[in-house]
């Protein structure tokens, strides 16, 4: 076993193209992608009218804020933190856009202000988490209520509507002309996704994100400034929520205090379905995006299949549990069988070294992920 793990380690160090491809196929992302394809095929057969352009178009519009917010959220979860206030920040930003517009401010400036407001909200989260050293779960549950309260307090039951047509048409536009499936927003998502993937997977900042999530102490010794890193991540999450608030106001043509309520749970669920570990240290943006797409597919197909809007939640909840518990159960099963095999082989190992070998194996897995 020990020989095997060490040779595995050298292989990990310099993967050949074949091994890289094999690892990609056996990875969590591939599993989720396969799940997405299976869901799509089943739905396409079962649900009438699912393959039409209109369905795809509306699914794209609904999915856009979830998948965009999943980008910074994934990075935050990888550091071992979480941001539950994004739904409230999105709502607050949509209210800001609405109020500014009603004061006669032009939409582009209002959008910029919304992004700044979001970033400021993220800055407060980040300061409380990184500087003051509070648990992000507690902080963002607090700011979730705080920001939502501000949004609802500012407008009350009022809603600001009738945003200018040109901007609304831009937000709800279709990339390839009327009647086609792809919303213009896909373009914006692709740009954002490329930027975020480059940031997380190809910069030292991104490596720092994984390092902090895996072992904060080791990361500190390696010279990662985890405080600054977390602050930047929370701010980027807030800024993204600001942008999505603007999108929300324009897409639904309504700035209300209760916009985007519960959005944070969708985003977290998407990331977790996509294989991002809630313990921090592992996960990828591609996986998280595919996870969001699976949830989006499920939601829009069930909606088309005349399943009541809220009963869809059962499916989302079960999906979340199955995708998280499933691989974990497999892993535990594998460990158990490996343990049994080792014990049966009777090489005189005691249980301790046995567990050493197993935990080695786990660590290896974590590193390769």
């Amino acid at each position, binding site marked *: 076993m020990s020989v095997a793990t060490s040779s595995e380690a050298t292989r990990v160090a310099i993967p050949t193209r074949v091994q890289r491809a094999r690892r990609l196929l056996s990875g969590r992302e591939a599993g989720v992608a396969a799940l997405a394809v299976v869901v799509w095929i089943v739905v396409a057969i079962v649900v009438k009218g699912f393959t039409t352009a209109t369905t795809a178009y509306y699914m794209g519009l609904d999915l856009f804020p979830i998948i965009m917010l999943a980008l910074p959220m994934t990075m935050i979860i990888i550091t071992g933190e979480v941001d539950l206030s994004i739904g409230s920040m999105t709502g607050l930003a949509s209210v800001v856009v609405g109020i500014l517009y009603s004061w006669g401010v032009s939409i582009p400036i209002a959008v910029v202000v919304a992004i700044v407001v979001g970033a400021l909200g993220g800055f407060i989260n980040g300061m409380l988490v990184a500087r003051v050293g509070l648990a992000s779960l507690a902080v963002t549950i607090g700011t979730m209520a705080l920001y939502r309260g501000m949004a609802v*307090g500012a407008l009350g039951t009022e809603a600001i509507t009738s945003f200018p047509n040109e901007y609304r048409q831009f937000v709800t536009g279709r990339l390839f002309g009327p009647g086609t499936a792809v919303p213009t927003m896909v373009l914006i998502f692709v740009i954002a996704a490329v930027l975020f993937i480059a940031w997380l997977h190809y910069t030292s900042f991104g490596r720092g994100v994984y390092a902090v999530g895996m072992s904060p102490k080791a990361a500190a010794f390696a010279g990662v400034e985890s405080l600054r890193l977390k602050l930047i991540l929370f701010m980027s999450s807030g800024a993204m929520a600001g942008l999505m608030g603007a999108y929300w106001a324009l897409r639904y043509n309504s700035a209300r205090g209760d916009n985007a309520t519960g959005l944070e749970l969708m985003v977290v669920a998407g990331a977790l379905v996509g294989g991002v570990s809630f313990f921090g240290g592992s996960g990828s943006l591609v996986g998280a995006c595919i996870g969001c797409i699976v949830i989006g597919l499920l939601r829009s197909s069930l909606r088309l299949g005349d399943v009541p809007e809220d009963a869809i939640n059962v499916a989302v*909840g079960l999906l979340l549990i199955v995708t*998280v518990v499933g691989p974990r159960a497999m892993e535990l099963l594998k460990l158990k069988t490996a343990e049994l095999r080792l014990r049966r082989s009777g090489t005189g190992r005691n249980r301790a070294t046995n567990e050493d070998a197993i935990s080695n194996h786990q660590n290896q897995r974590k590193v390769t992920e």
Partner: protein
Amino acid sequence: MSTALVARKSSSAIGARLKRLMKRREAAAVLATIGLIVLTGIVNPRFLTGADAIRNLWLTPSMLMVIAVAQAVVLITRNVDLSISATLGISAYATGVMFAEHPEIPDAVVVIVAILIGTALGTINGLLVSLGRIPSLVITLGTLYAYKGLLIAWAGSNRIVPSDLPDWLKELGVATIAGFPVLTVFALIILICVGYYMYQRPSGREMYAIGSSPEAAELCGLPVRRRVPVAFVISGTLAGLAGVIYAARYATISSLAGAGLEFDTVASAVIGGVSMSGGLGTVAGAAVGAALLSTIDRALPTMGVPAFWQECAVGALILAAIVLDRVLAIRNERRLRVDPADGSKPGRAGEQA
């Protein structure tokens, strides 16, 4: 401290005890609650003098208190139960349906079944968290969706109205014993029972040990993987009971029963000094936090603040509470730190300074 040790024993012992009590984290929440009530009473005397004013003051927090206590138990083990609101909703609706559509079932059985539904849902959470070794936030987020969806699928747009429910249940919602609401008495009894379990029973103390450091608890030989599900079973059971209280208190039950309460329970516990990172805080604190939250709910409109700002106040309160906890923790840590220079015993260094 030193005066308390030297001077007249009997009176100063009480004084010291009182002092220690005042220093407790729960005292801050109690003072905030009393302060809020007094302030509201000054701004709008009807808050305290109107018909049923005092009764309502006690009655309002009863349901939230029960589930906040439940949430505190789970939080103390360094877990969280987000599905608590959905469990409450299912149990409340089940109570309503059994009364409305199956009058042949004895009343006591209805209540017991409603509570057991909560127990069952809590058991599912506990097993998933413990067997899968997955963060409870993830599991209970999943079961929150699933249970809520189940409730909506079951209830649809149906609604249990007061005429469906037996009179004794509706009267229970407003009944008083010597001017004290019965439901609040229930809530306090539950608080005392759970509090006794958490502070006096060995398995309750183990919950604290597990919450402060799961690894250390495991190394000490504590049955971590058997104890954590118990917290979820307690939480589910109490949520089931809270569902019955919901039915008694509101008498109108739809698929929306309990929606959004999961964050209120976490907020109550945190405001009352229960740490989200486990091992710290008391269920009594959570109950006080629940009282404070429910009082804010009623106080703000009475003071003329639009109800819309209430959530804002709750958020600010949560943040203030966790910052306060952090400050206290840092101060405590400093007090306990051994000064390597003079080598004095921990605990004395701070007092000398």
